[in-house]
């Protein structure tokens, strides 16, 4: 039973994939022996993976087979990698931010007694994320899809004693699982349509001239459903509109987790996968429009919600939601461009480029907020902070760079370029969505300036804010590095160096530029004027603060559709199925049995009568009845 032979080019990706897994496994098994060493082990593995991903940057495209999974005759599901520009870029993001988060959490989690378990789960996450990035076929993608869900469950639920964290991790996993339900249906439909080959190259070939080609003409509904199925996987993972409720609650996890998973990498996996299977979406125009609209709506809605949040991490969480909406909208719009307007797709992809830039500054913002929380003795409410500019200068500077890039300050920030490319595509493909994009940009500017002003400017509102001092060096260093990366990623050459899939800037329509700059100015000025020197929130919009009451709606749905239905079904099953199949025959047998017992009632006269009657019956049966029946 030796696994099939491996070719040499696969050794690097295999190491990249297996190293974190082995680290996680050794931490699980030997955490008593390793004690402190496990933390070092996990950081070492993150560092090695970063180095390997750098080496991979200039490797040529290849699709090596890494590990066998299921092999029956010619049917084969295997862990085979697919190294191309997109995966190399993403790999760089994952490993770099992963390493920085490892370092940051070294400080952040110093006095947490579950530290060993935390780093074990982090390594498990790195393993699953690498699996998604390198995945060569949809099955492998699905496998690591669920593993990522598991690691987010472990990390969110790290402080499982807190009931809120326990609920949050359960909610995250279940929402992901609902997304995976749709994802698997999509995969199975493609599996069926493409004669069993769901590797990306096989699917691309299928759509080009294989069985799927004429399928797109003849069975549009089938292809649309397949595309939407695949999209549902992304909705679950990247927290798009119907299944977005778990991301804000995921803030229950430690901040480094939020930074790594819920800002940069995991939530981006959905967009990464959509871009990977863009040819599936391009195959059905109405799927593309649906995707675009869901992206747009999510972006707008999340932005509206963010305006009324008081917890620093929640604001950032909603901003991530909004930016993800942008990326999904970009995927949809580009698909519309290709399928409806028959533009041939350019080299890069606006969604990937925005994902790329967003990863850096959003991770930096989250780590910054982590430093602030750490400094203010785990205080998360921005209204209890204030005036931190003086107390925490370095964090202030990095935070400012991040905010600027997020708001999309024109020309000097990477955020601007990536947002610009999306709005550009939006302008041509679908005008209404373009205006929604602009509105979201404005809102983004508004709530970021609001947060920035409340936290850093003005006077410290509480004691802890007053005594806040700069976070230790181990936590500030990653901030600085990330700030540097954010700044660098505005330059074309740096991005090309890091294979960041930059779309070529076809000359956009001037209104795009003007609209985005106007949105920025209006949003930030209103935010600045409204919140400067205030000690409480002037606006009080219940609808946004309570997140459009989605949590309550979903709770009702779950309660009615599942718990009460379960109670009813349980009762019915006990009464009918158990009753009819088990208790009824037993009752009948008992009834007949007790009736038959009267026959042996002890009276001799009854016996003689019965015997006589028996004889008569036998005679009647044999002599008169059976001959007629011709039995």
């Amino acid at each position, binding site marked *: 039973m030796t696994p099939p032979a491996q070719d040499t080019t696969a050794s690097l990706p295999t190491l990249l994939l297996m190293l974190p897994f082995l680290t996680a496994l050794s931490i699980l098994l030997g955490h008593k022996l390793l004690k402190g060493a496990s933390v070092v082990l996990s950081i070492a593995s993150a560092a090695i993976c970063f180095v390997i991903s750098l080496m991979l940057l200039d490797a040529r495209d290849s699709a090596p087979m890494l590990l066998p999974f299921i092999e029956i005759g010619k049917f084969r599901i295997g862990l085979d990698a697919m190294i191309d520009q997109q995966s190399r870029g993403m790999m760089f993001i994952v490993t770099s931010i992963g390493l920085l988060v490892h370092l940051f959490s070294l400080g952040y989690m110093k006095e947490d007694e579950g530290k060993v378990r935390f780093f074990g789960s982090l390594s498990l996450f790195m393993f699953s994320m690498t699996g998604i990035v390198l995945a060569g076929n949809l099955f492998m993608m699905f496998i690591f899809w669920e593993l990522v869900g598991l690691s987010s469950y472990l990390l969110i639920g790290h402080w499982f004693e807190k009931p809120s964290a326990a609920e949050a991790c359960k909610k995250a996993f279940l929402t992901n699982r609902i997304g995976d339900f749709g994802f698997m249906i999509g995969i199975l439909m493609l599996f069926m349509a493409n004669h069993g080959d769901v590797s990306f190259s096989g699917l691309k070939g299928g759509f080009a001239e294989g069985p799927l080609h004429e399928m797109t003409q003849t069975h549009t509904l089938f292809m649309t459903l397949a595309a939407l199925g695949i999209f549902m996987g992304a909705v679950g993972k990247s927290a798009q509109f119907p299944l977005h409720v778990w991301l804000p609650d995921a803030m229950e996890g430690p901040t480094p987790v939020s930074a790594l998973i819920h800002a940069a990498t995991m939530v981006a996996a959905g967009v990464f996968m959509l871009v990977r299977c863009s040819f599936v979406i391009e195959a059905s125009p109405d799927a593309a429009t649906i995707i675009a609209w869901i992206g747009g709506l999510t972006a707008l809605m999340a932005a509206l919600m963010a305006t009324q949040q008081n917890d620093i991490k929640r604001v950032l969480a909603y901003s991530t939601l909004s930016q993800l909406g942008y990326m999904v909208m970009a995927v949809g719009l580009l698909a519309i461009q290709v399928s409806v307007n028959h533009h041939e797709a350019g080299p890069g992809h606006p969604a990937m480029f925005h994902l790329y830039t967003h990863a850096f500054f959003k991770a930096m913002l989250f780590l910054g907020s982590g430093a602030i929380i750490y400094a203010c003795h785990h205080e998360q409410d921005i209204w209890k902070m204030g005036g931190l500019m003086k107390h925490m200068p370095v964090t202030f500077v990095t935070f400012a760079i991040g905010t600027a890039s997020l708001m999309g300050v024109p020309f000097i920030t990477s955020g601007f370029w990536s947002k610009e490319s999306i709005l550009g595509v939006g302008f041509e493909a679908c005008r209404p969505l373009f205006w929604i994009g602009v509105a979201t940009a404005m809102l983004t500017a508004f709530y970021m300036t609001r947060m920035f002003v409340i936290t850093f400017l003005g006077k410290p509102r509480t004691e802890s804010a007053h005594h806040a001092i700069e976070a230790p060096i181990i936590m500030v260093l990653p901030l600085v590095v990330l700030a540097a990366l954010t700044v660098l990623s505005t330059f074309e050459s740096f991005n090309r160096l890091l294979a960041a899939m930059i779309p070529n800037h076809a000359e956009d329509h001037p209104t795009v530029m003007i609209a985005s700059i106007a949105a920025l100015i209006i949003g930030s000025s209103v935010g600045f004027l409204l919140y400067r020197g205030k000690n409480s929130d002037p606006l009080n919009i219940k609808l946004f603060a309570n997140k459009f009451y989605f949590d309550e709606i979903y709770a009702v749905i779950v309660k009615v559709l599942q718990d009460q239905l379960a109670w009813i079904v349980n009762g019915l099953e006990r009464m009918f199925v158990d009753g009819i199949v088990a208790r009824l025959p037993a009752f009948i047998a008992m009834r007949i049995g007790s009736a038959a017992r009267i026959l042996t009632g002890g009276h001799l*006269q009854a016996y003689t*009568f019965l015997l*006589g*009657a028996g*004889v*008569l019956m036998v*005679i*009647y049966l044999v*002599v008169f009845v059976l001959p007629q029946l011709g039995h």
Partner: protein
Amino acid sequence: MPSLLFYLFALITLGFGLMVVLARNPVTSALSLAMSFVGLAALFISLDAFFIGTIQILVYAGAVMVLFLFIIMLLDIKAESDRKTNVAAIVGAIVLGSVLAVQIATVSAAHHQSDLTLNEAALNLVAAGNQMAATDKDLPTISKDLKAGILPDTKLMGLALFKQYGFHLQVMGLLLMVGTVGVVVLSKRDKEVAR
């Protein structure tokens, strides 16, 4: 055997049979059973089964009835007080009896020899006698009577019993032996009364 006599004896048998069932006093039913057996014996004789007829009277009417009377007297069983007559049992009995009788009647009508009279089923004694003389020499008396046209029923019966069914006779002996032992065991007086 004129048919009148047959009906007379049939009437006696069935009448007294009914008396046995209906009589209140066990002695009357015992005696009516005896009379019924006598009627039955007469029917046997009408069927040329003289030996069986006499045995019927000797064993049944004689020994068995005497035994019954003896037991009735010994146990001094009074007439059945008719306070609690079990109506259901009687109705059941009547139904059973009539249904059985109807069934038997229909079947006996269907019997292939049912309309054969005694004369038609005549016995050919002389031929039997010659045939008997031819086959086994050591039974001259039977073949002599047969040739003379009279039916030596008892002799033929003896022949059948001791020649064909000798083994069964021994078993009957064994059975009677067991019967007597049973009687002794079951009715011997015990020192104290059974619990």
